[in-house]
């Protein structure tokens, strides 16, 4: 019998190794798996590469993982948010590597990894500083840069409801990167507001099919 629901952070995060690439959902705090990220501090994996649209704020969630010195490198599109103090400090101290890339390029690179695509050309960043050093080809009169897939060893994401088979539905714009990171990693771990049995979610509205999800942990939503 398949039951992807786990009951503790230890079970949810078991086996994440040092040096892993971790894909993280969320746009700002909406959809960010804050509790999983904090539990990863206790789990102990280090030397991590984190892919996340933003680079954490305050001292919680991703910022707490960075503060604990576990993140070697962060790939993101927008590290500046109100209260993004930890990434500022670590970067100024030379303690974290920062790679900034266009938001749609990060998203599409993960989708390419999920879809078995070896690379793709896009107009985004062609002729700019962020496109420098990338192979460039002209299609239909416009320069395009070559982008390679971005695959995760692990994806951490937050959804609204997960069922026994790992099917997921989301809440409004907290969906954001969740479905993409879920598809693009070898081990996908979802924290959800509630879990249900198989068959309880309307199959017409399932956003992430369970094939992409390995573990589901219920974490009550913060007020």
């Amino acid at each position, binding site marked *: 019998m398949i039951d992807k629901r786990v009951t503790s952070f230890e079970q949810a995060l078991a086996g994440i190794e040092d040096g892993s690439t971790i894909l993280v959902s969320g746009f700002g705090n909406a959809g960010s798996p804050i509790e999983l990220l904090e539990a990863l501090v206790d789990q102990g994996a280090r030397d991590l590469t984190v892919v996340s649209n933003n680079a954490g704020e305050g001292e919680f969630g991703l910022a707490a993982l960075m503060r604990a010195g576990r993140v070697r490198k962060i790939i993101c599109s927008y590290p500046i948010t109100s209260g993004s103090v930890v990434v500022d400090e670590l970067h100024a101290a030379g303690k974290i590597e920062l790679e900034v890339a266009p938001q749609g390029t990060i998203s599409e690179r993960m989708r390419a990894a999920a879809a078995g695509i070896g690379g793709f050309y896009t107009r985004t960043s062609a002729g700019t500083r962020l496109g420098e050093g990338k192979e460039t080809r002209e299609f239909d009169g416009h320069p395009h840069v070559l982008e390679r897939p971005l695959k995760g060893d692990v994806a951490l994401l937050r959804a609204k409801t997960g069922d026994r088979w790992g099917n997921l539905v989301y809440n409004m*714009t907290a969906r954001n990167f969740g479905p993409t990171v879920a598809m693009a990693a070898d081990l996908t771990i979802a924290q959800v507001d509630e879990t249900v049995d198989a068959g309880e979610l309307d199959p017409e509205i399932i956003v992430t099919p369970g094939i992409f999800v390995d573990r589901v942990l219920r974490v009550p939503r913060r007020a």
Partner: protein
Amino acid sequence: MGLDRNQIAWRIAQDIADGSYVNLGIGMPELVADYIPEGREIVFHSENGLLGMGPKPPKDREDHDLMNAGKKPVTLVPGGAYFHHTDSFLMIRGGHLDLCVLGAYQISEAGDLANWATDSDKRLPAVGGAMDLAAGTPRVVAMTTHCARDGTPKLLGECTFPLTAAGVVDRVYTDLAVVDVTPAGFVAREIVDGMTLDELRDRTGARLTAAENPGILKAPALGHAAG
């Protein structure tokens, strides 16, 4: 003499056709949504997975799972939809939107846009969705003051700040003029009341010509009507 930011937003809104799918950049362009003429239905896209974005909710109805690209609480209008990030950027990069309105540090006469970084910036580099929007949207218009605070022109022969995308801007709306980017360079379509073409040229860092019958750029006094 020049328009204020709400008036520039009003002027841009007059040009957005009924039924358009539009992305408004973070900051000043967000004001455009307040001035869509009565009777036009415009669908606003937000990069974080939203079509049909409505105004901000009352304080007691805010939900931190319903945000705009600036991470502020918004609402969804009837007919609106949520979707995930890759679909959202597919809409942007695949040219499915009709228009985006972006802020600008500089625009070149070739339509190059610089709006994401300045070399004097002490903050970390941050690009967000700016390059995707600029490169992917069929019509890109810039909303900006004609000159920077220190008086330096923002419409230039070439941008000196790092580019967001090359050759993408179609039109620039400023406090002083509406300027098209054409193969022949900048062409003023409208100039604010009381300003001559030569005076506008003095405030422009590139060759500027005027359309055959340039109009007068004007907008109603909007007071504090904007949200």
